[in-house]
């Protein structure tokens, strides 16, 4: 393997990491800040993808689709918060897991009811659709560059929101004692609805952005969901910085594992077996990574409230 390819793959790993972070961002917000496990995050991701695709097809504009997906996911998030989630804050994780698991079932079938069973068309806007040439002569898809920028922007924005603003303090205060923060004059119910809607909007945003280079179909949120959980848990729940770093770590480990394991194994076995076994091990790699991290740091790499 050439050095150039190795570097390119590192870049791909980092880029996958940023994409994972984008997908995990809304989840980190809800999960970390509100202390709520939301399995339906993947469904909101899917809704974002579908709405963007549908509106883009109808209007001919990707950007309109993107805005619509943000709005639709936020609205749906607010609705879900008011109808369901609100009753779950003081429940244990088990109830949260199951209620949102139920939402996953409902959203999947609901989206299918509305949009049909077939994958939808969603492409990046024309001016981002081709490759650009990076310094060093490497062609690189322009749209992925855009995703990286969006992901980093979301990371920075969220980080500031949570750690630097009063809103962030109030949300975190609400996580530790909802009744008390309300008794001090903060409308925590409304605030939580807003936060949940924001998290949902981020999920929808990610679904729309990522949907343009992946497939917009029922169930598209599920693999994302599990990966996003892995990312957040490795990073330490509630830490935006941790999530970003963990996402990059997972991206690089996954990419390099897929690349290197088959190569290493081909030294000891037949090439096509090595490809199979290597890939089998690679698919377990990020889970191994997660298990290893948690065994040594049971609260993730960057525990919040340490």
């Amino acid at each position, binding site marked *: 393997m050439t050095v150039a390819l190795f570097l390119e793959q590192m870049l791909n790993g980092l880029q996958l990491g940023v994409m994972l972070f984008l997908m995990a961002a809304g989840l980190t917000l809800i999960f970390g800040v509100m202390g709520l496990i939301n399995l339906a995050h993947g469904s909101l991701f899917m809704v974002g993808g579908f709405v963007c695709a549908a509106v883009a097809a109808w209007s001919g504009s990707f950007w309109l689709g993107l805005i619509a997906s943000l709005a639709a996911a936020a609205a749906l998030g607010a609705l879900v918060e008011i109808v369901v989630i609100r009753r779950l804050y003081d429940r244990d994780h088990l109830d949260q897991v*199951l209620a949102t698991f139920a939402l996953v079932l409902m959203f999947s079938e609901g989206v*299918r009811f509305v949009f049909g069973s077939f994958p939808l068309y969603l492409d990046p806007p024309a001016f981002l659709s081709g490759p650009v040439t990076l310094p060093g002569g490497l062609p690189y898809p322009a749209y992925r560059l855009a995703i990286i920028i969006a992901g980093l922007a979301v990371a920075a924005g969220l980080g500031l929101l949570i750690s630097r603003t009063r809103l962030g303090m109030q949300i975190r205060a609400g996580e530790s004692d909802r009744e008390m923060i309300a008794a001090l004059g903060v409308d925590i119910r409304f605030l939580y609805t807003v936060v949940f809607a924001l998290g949902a909007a981020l999920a929808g945003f990610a679904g729309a952005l990522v949907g343009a280079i992946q497939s917009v179909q029922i169930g598209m949120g599920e693999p994302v969901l599990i990966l996003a959980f892995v990312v957040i848990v490795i990073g330490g729940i509630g830490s935006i910085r941790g999530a970003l770093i963990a996402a990059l770590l997972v991206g690089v480990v996954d990419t390099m594992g897929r690349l290197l394991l088959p190569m290493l194994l081909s030294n000891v076995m037949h090439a096509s077996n090595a490809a199979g076994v290597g890939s089998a091990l690679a698919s377990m790699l990020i889970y191994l990574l997660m*298990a290893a991290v948690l065994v040594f740091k049971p609260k993730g790499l960057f525990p919040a409230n340490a």
Partner: protein
Amino acid sequence: MRDLVTEHRLNIVLALVLLAGPLVAHAADEPFMVTLATRAAILALAGVGLNIALGLGGLVSFGHAAFFGLGGYAVGILASHHQNYEPLMTWPFLVNGTNQMLILWLVAVLVSGLAALVIGALSLRTSGVYFIMITLAFAQMLYFFAISWPAYGGEDGLSIYVRNAFPGINTLRPLDFFLLCYAVLMVVLVAQWRMTGARFGTALQAVRQNEGRVAALGLSPYRIRLAAFVISGMVTGLAGALYVDLNRFVSPSMMSWHLSGEIMVFIILGGVARLFGPVVGACLFVLFEHVFGSFTEHWQFFLGAALLAVVLFARGGFIGVVAGRARHD
């Protein structure tokens, strides 16, 4: 005290209903109803296993499908070697496959117990959401391994064509096999009931409610939890073994996170930490799947809605609604 009596009576009624249903169906020549009841009984057993960790111990394992699948693969692999007359291994000593359920169950229980020991030993270092996620991660790991490991069918799974044998019973007859599964379920339920009131059950429940206090009393919460997790994994593994014989087929989907979720669903539907909770939950689930499944292709929507309603409004599940709040001494 009155609630406790109600719950005991309810449990006896439930046990009898689960027994009577298939007997009636058999008499009415509806073998499929018997099969359905068998499915419910086996899934219930998986739920009973999880309920030991989750209900009594407060360990929300989102990866119990791993033990279900491991128990299943233990049976599938041994039985297929037996059918193909290929030894499982020849070195350092010869191990042959078998079709004797009693041996298969023992192996399934040992394998899943061992896996639970390893997974539990690592996972129990964490708690709360981290525990939920790390158990999920371990299950996903095994799931992906099973999908891509070619020796035993990978994602295609492994068929064993004929049911394994149990002395004195013709397991191929639906009713016989049901009775066998039912008996296993009842034995495990009685054992769990005894255990709950015994010292181990007391300690386990204490750990769930106040770990710091238990440690301050000089008992190790970690060990108590680990023991519960292993017992729990073994029971779920035994259920997996039976499930493979029911379907005559084992595949990685037995380890998927959906199945882990469904096992939890049984418990919630029936009632967390209630002895018969998973039994009721599994029966309701199986009924739902089949009744709604033939009405509408959107049945999963209604399943979701029903589940949501139970979680939000019927806390304590079915048994909670009928027999009231749980009591402990």
